[in-house]
């Protein structure tokens, strides 16, 4: 069934409407998220003035919600770039309305995740000592430390993701430049670098995007591998696991897809983009989410089976605390939220609707946040010398900061949708031309609403 291409004017109007006239939902969202961010800023100020004692961390649980949030948000950042890059490289046509949604998630999630290595420091005003720069004392960072690797990996990924978001944005920036007046025209004009849409420019842009897509995939894989190595390079029981690299990357893609589905569902509702973000997109992403849920469960099962079977006392202490001990409600909750409920939900087409996938994704997000918590805290609470076992309870400061990360993410995303079109206009239009050129292949870029959709 070939789709009838809507007029250029209609596509422009629909996809630029969030930029021009966002609607009440947008204002409400921004208000709430600003309040949450302000609360978190207050908590952070309190923390900087009094010290890390206002958190719940202690000896031996020296890391808790701070690193949970760090790993969680870096994980979310694997949505965009990987999905967008992999779908581009494999030529999946249905990616067109999704790519920018995804790429924006990556940039903002990375920015938020990258805050935590700074704010979790005992002396955060010296965070720049992790940056290699010449100084008169001849001091340099220790490149053997996984935290130094983190710095390079996250910086590279952040820069790469920003560029990967920016490049396909250039033609849309030119579009906005042409449609604007005054200061906005100057703004878009500067950002679009004088883009005219000549054949040469399109060719170079597409080459650049292709190179980026290919380079960013190994970078993305390396980033969360290196984050996982913050744990795996230690000798703590149930941290020192060779599986952590792939385990964390799979978990990151898993939580990233869930975040993408939720973002798409919200954007679709708030900006009335039902014709563009269609059931088929949620269906396909839902299938990917199902795949990742199975992969996540496979890794988790392998991790725990080897611990139990090996029966090493240090590992068994941590294992028992998660299976049946103090952390067991959270642990089994995670299994339910990440696998037991979403997998069946997503496996059946009748449940893999927009609503179904969104519910599954929300559960996955919650489950994955606690999964990161459960990787960190139970191990730290059970050191080898059992005299030093401890517990952990978060304080209001940490909980406010956690809420603040979600608020900040929503705020940044909302501002983004207001300034830039959340669906790539030119890529969407290109889909129709591509379809016309490839009449024999099925296309999923059908904006005309079919019955029962």
């Amino acid at each position: 069934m070939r789709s009838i291409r809507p007029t250029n004017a209609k596509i422009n109007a629909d996809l630029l409407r969030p930029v021009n006239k966002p609607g009440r939902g947008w204002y409400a969202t921004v208000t709430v998220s600003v309040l949450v961010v302000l609360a978190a800023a207050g908590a952070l100020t309190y923390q900087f003035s009094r010290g890390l004692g206002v958190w719940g961390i202690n000896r031996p649980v020296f890391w808790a919600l701070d690193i949970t949030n760090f790993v969680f948000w870096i994980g979310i950042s694997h949505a965009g770039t990987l999905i967008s890059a992999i779908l581009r490289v494999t030529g999946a046509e249905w990616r067109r309305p999704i790519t920018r949604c995804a790429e924006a998630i990556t940039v903002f999630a990375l920015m938020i995740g990258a805050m935590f290595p700074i704010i979790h420091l005992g002396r955060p005003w010296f965070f720049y000592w992790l940056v290699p720069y010449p100084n008169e004392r001849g001091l340099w960072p220790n490149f053997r430390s996984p935290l130094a690797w983190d710095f390079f990996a996250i910086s590279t990924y952040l820069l790469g993701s920003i560029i990967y978001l920016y490049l396909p944005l250039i033609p849309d920036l030119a579009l906005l430049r042409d449609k604007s007046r005054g200061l906005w025209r100057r703004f878009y004009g500067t950002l679009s670098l004088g883009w005219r849409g000549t054949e040469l420019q399109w060719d170079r842009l597409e080459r650049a995007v292709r190179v980026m897509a290919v380079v960013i995939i190994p970078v993305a894989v390396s980033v969360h591998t290196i984050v996982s190595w913050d744990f795996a390079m230690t000798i703590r029981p149930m941290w020192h696991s060779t599986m952590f690299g792939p385990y964390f990357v799979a978990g990151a893609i898993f939580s990233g897809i869930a975040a993408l589905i939720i973002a798409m569902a919200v954007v679709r509702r708030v900006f009335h983009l039902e014709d563009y973000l269609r059931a088929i997109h949620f269906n396909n992403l839902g299938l990917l989410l199902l795949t990742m849920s199975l992969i996540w469960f496979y890794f988790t099962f392998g991790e725990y089976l080897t611990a139990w079977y090996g029966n090493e006392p240090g590992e068994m202490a941590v294992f028992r605390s998660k299976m049946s001990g103090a952390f067991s409600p959270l642990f089994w909750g995670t299994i339910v939220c990440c696998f037991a409920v979403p997998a069946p939900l997503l496996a059946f087409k009748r449940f893999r609707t927009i609503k179904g996938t969104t519910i599954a994704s929300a559960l996955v997000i919650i489950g994955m946040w606690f999964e990161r918590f459960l990787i960190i805290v139970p191990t730290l609470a059970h050191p080898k010398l059992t005299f030093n076992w401890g517990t952990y309870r978060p304080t209001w400061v940490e909980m406010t900061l956690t809420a603040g990360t979600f608020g900040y993410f929503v705020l940044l995303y909302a501002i983004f949708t207001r300034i830039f079109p959340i669906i790539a206009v030119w890529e969407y239009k290109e889909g129709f031309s591509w379809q016309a050129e490839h009449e024999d292949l099925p296309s999923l870029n059908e904006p005309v609403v079919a019955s029962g959709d």
Partner: protein
Amino acid sequence: MTEEAKSKKPQWAMVIDLDRCTGCEACVVACRVENNIPTVGPEEAAKGRSINWIRVERYFEGEYPDVKVKFMPVLCQHCEEAPCEPVCPVYATYHTDEGLNAQVYNRCVGTRYCANNCPYTVRFFNFFDPVWDAPLDKALNPEVSVRTRGVMEKCTFCIQRIRKGEEKAKDEGREVRDGDVVPACVQTCQTKAMYFGNIADPASEVARLAKSNRATRLLEELGTKPRVIYLNKGD
């Protein structure tokens, strides 16, 4: 012993005789007085934040009436291949050529990664600005720096006493020998359960005791190569 053996410098080590330890914790008190260790207060201690560079671990074995109590003083083991050292991103902890695991307070930014990688849980963090309850604030040792909040600290083998002992030996034109350097815990131990000295010096007490058939190291299977040797016959 790798490169340290090749250097002429003394290689510091400690021997603790568990069959003599009574668990009196005089070493714990002496250490905190000598090293300006802050008191965190009862609430913070309840949260698990009290700082004890040396602590006496107490394990109960068996059921009543056949209960045995084992006491084990645990302090920084100054591992030759310390897992805490490579993970610090700013070189705030490293290995000296005398075999000490050094902690540089001024360089520490407080990532707490070193504490997470220490299998002996001997590293401590200043969660708040340190406070000394009166009149302890008048009894600070001027030879030891005080730490600020956000900085890691741990046993240094009383490096201030090591320096003093080495300087005295140098002034007298001789090598360091047994008795020149006595850390606060070793000095205070009531049952003389602790020994300290240069394990590279065959004439030293620690070198002799390290070869005892009661000698063992804590968590030896981890390959950290600790410089604290425990004498434990058990019974």
